[in-house]
């Protein structure tokens, strides 16, 4: 399902993207990207959580309702979760939520789950830039302010 087209025509649009990063892998990758002085879009905001499995439907939907144009959730590679299997649960919940998003007229593409290990600083920077660019093309979050809170 695609968002209303007319809103995405503005090339000046700077998307607001929230990244929920797992403390043990992707947050460390983000630090590494920083240490390597890679460029991260300034509209991307990091929120640290202990494990990708903490990211539940409520948190994601609320973040969209609050006006995020895109959400990136990033955790450890399958098998590497610090807490055993958290990222498998995250993946399962994601699949469910994508369906819910369709019913809300939100393009499921606005939500992405990726695995980035602590060693993948370069990849982190790429993933964030690519995702931000994708959201820029999709345009602003179509939920108007009356449905937001």
């Amino acid at each position, binding site marked *: 399902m695609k968002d209303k087209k007319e809103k995405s025509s503005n090339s000046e649009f700077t998307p607001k993207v929230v990244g929920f990063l797992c403390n043990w892998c992707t947050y460390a990758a*983000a630090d590494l990207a*920083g240490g390597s002085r890679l*460029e991260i879009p300034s509209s991307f905001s990091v929120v640290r959580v202990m494990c990708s499995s*903490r990211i539940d439907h409520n*948190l994601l939907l609320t973040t969209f309702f*609050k006006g*995020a144009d895109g959400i990136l959730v990033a955790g450890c590679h399958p098998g590497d979760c610090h807490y055993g299997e958290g990222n498998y649960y995250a993946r399962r919940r994601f699949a469910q939520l994508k369906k819910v998003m369709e019913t809300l007229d939100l393009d499921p593409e606005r939500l992405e789950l990726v695995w980035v290990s602590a060693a993948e600083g370069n990849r982190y920077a790429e993933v964030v830039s690519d995702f931000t660019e994708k959201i820029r093309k999709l345009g602003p979050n179509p939920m108007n302010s009356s449905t937001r809170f």
Partner: protein
Amino acid sequence: MKAKVGVYVCECGPNIAGKTDLDEIITYLSEFRGFGDVELVVRKYGFLCSNQGKEYLEKEIRDLGLTHLVVGACSPRDHDSTFKDVCGKTQLNPYLYKIINIREHCTWVIDDMDKATEKAKSYLRAGIARVLYQSELFESPIDVNPDVLVIGGGVAGMEAALALAGENRSVTIVEKNDTLGGRAGKLRGFSFQEFNKPEQVEKLIETILGNPCINVFLDSEVTSVIGFLGNFEIEHVSLESKVITELFCGSIITATGADLYETTEESGFKYSESDDVYNSMEITEMLSSGDEITLRSGKEPETIAIVHCVGREELGYCSGVCCTVMMKTANMIKARYPDIRITQFYRDICLPPSGGQELYAAARSSGVNFVKVQSTGLSGTTVKFKEKNGDEGEQFFDMVLLASALVPSKDTPALSELLGIPVDETGFFQEAHRMTNPSATTTDGVFIVGTSQGPRNISDSMLFARASAGQILTKLLVGEKLVPEVAVTEILEAYCTGCGNCLDVCVYGAIYPDEARGISIVNEAICRGCGNCYGSCPSGALRTKHFTNIQLFREVDEALR
């Protein structure tokens, strides 16, 4: 009491101060009215993690009577605990503080000074907004029991016990069999590397039995395990007398070994009890006991086939040790019976880096015949095989020896349940992390060693055993107290319907049902605060104390402002 939030932005030399307009940030935040009736003190400092910096911060918290603290500096992975410790010296609870990473996530990754300044403002606002919703948490150190339980008295279990006893730890070994030694005990002199003398296993057993720090229960099995790192309560039962003994310990080492794969007719191995077909353990026992190698008819065999990789196809992994075992077997037979003709049917030969090649070369030079095949089967003592080029063949032998794969011991599923430790896709116990933490498990305080973890040789089994002993020695110090994670999850009783969803989700088994009250309860000593259960509760009864919805929502609000 009115909140008074201290916001301290670290210059970190040019790292932060050189890439943002700090004065502008300070003025902006000081005048920011978005937090209601909250007093903000916003200041900057050179290097907050320096000793002067820490003293400065400590004094500020005290003198100004701060109720919350936000430090805008570097990654929490560098200095979160630094500033937590500073809070610990003052009236301020360390959980009412938050570090904001404006170096790694802002000044180092955003080149444009104006943009970096705006981003730093946004991250700092998010930090202030969040910290106002954090609550005090209190770390309560608990007494730990330094004693260790070792389940299984093979080489791995014995080596771990000795390493611990060497540091004066009390160790109890609970062994199912009537002797210590496990497989190596039966191998006696039969082994490929250091264990080339039968006395070595015997000496190890004697040392164990003579060590005042080590208590051994033979013919016994563990029947109940409750508790957590530092405080386990164990029950084990004597298989003979059925007497149950209680035991208290702080950590557990599982060293219960592996079994041998049993062939099936479906996989092409058709033979009966009366055929001269033996697995690697049976021939090994025959050789190490010094008995004659004879057929069931009493005659000496003229031809022997050794079939490699038995079970590998079905199991999907290579057992690593069987090739070496079979090289050694062939060499020992040849040394005693030079006239017996031996043929090895192999798929590929997997040998350990040290010593393996020599065993192989010796087998070759003593005239052992090697046939590379794609697959093998058996009909009595006739070996059926498919050659590399696809041709099928069969050959009769007097005796057949099977290099059977190592498989998880049959007690593994029950122990997995009892100890709350998972098994991997092969069915062996799973390590916490294959590369970085290979003898720990997802249950704090429970370790796995030796072949209970997967196929390996004696020296590797012993090496991992010493590694796990080392971890216990450094983790559970005698007389020290342990500080359990306090940023854990709680269940709000009023909302909980006792549905049990969260129980299934927690890999640590930290949640248990309180049937009388119809609710579930988190054992805070076990919970790690990962937050996985949060999303599983249909009634919103779960709350991960340092990562609540409201805390994260407030952070998101400011990020999106």
